[in-house]
């Protein structure tokens, strides 16, 4: 997949993965890399940025027979932002599809 498409949408993807449930890093990395062909590690800088922007928080949870695991969770702002971005993405896809299929934007 073209790298420019990926960059624009990775944050939306990560936010969307967290909408249904909190997840830990490894899970997110695998889900994301499984869908779009990016390296597993990419998810971590994205998560860090989302956290700094207040869209995501983390907490530690005890895991069986090992050190506690870091879980990522959407904040209220994160939930709103995911919803807004999802809408924008939908619009964007429609407009781009129209354009590349030789059509014009509605007058």
């Amino acid at each position, binding site marked *: 997949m073209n790298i420019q498409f990926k960059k624009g949408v990775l944050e939306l993807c990560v936010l969307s993965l967290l909408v249904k449930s909190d997840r830990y890093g*490894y899970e997110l990395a695998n889900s994301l890399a499984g869908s779009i062909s990016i*390296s597993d*590690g*990419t998810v*971590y800088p994205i998560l*860090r940025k989302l956290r700094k922007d207040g869209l995501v928080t983390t907490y530690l949870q005890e895991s069986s027979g*090992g*050190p506690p*695991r870091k879980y990522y969770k959407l904040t209220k702002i994160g939930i709103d932002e995911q919803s807004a971005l999802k809408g924008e993405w939908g619009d964007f896809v429609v407009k781009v599809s129209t354009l590349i299929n030789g059509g014009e934007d509605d007058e």
Partner: protein
Amino acid sequence: MNKVKFIKLMNRELHLLKKSERDEILAEFEEHFRTGMENGKSDEEVAAELGKPSELAIQYKDEIDFSQLSGGEKAAKISRKFLVAFGLLLFNGIIGIPVIASIFSVWVSLWTVPLSTGVTGLALLAAAIIPNLPIIPTLYIGFSSATIAVSILAGISLIGLTVLMGIGMIYVSKWFFRLVAAYVSGNIKAIKGE
């Protein structure tokens, strides 16, 4: 590459970040390795899946701590100190030290005044008390009681004068030492650059 190498490389690539940030990021990767290996993967596999440390590090560019860029700022500070030290060396050599040296020689010669006065006074007293004492050839005092009295009086007043001058010189010396101390600490402050 294995986990150790991955973490080491990552650490190096993120050197522009604050240590606390860097440690947090590395901990996340450590956890990823741990989970991956729990799921039966080798650390080599996990490292390969994670991607290249150099490419991942670029994505953390927003974390760079510009307020404490170690390289440039430190270099600027050090070269500044060198410039100041060199300038001070020139100043001290050409102006500072010669000036202080001449003030010092003036101070030394000023001391000769009370010193010579005191010596003269003592000599007069001695000549008066001890008969025929050839201390000062041209000032040979005879036996006459009048001249002896004069000599004693002169001697005492000269010694008194010496004491006064001595007190004065102590103040002058204090001032001189304070001047030198201020000059030296001024130099030190300039080098420190506070």
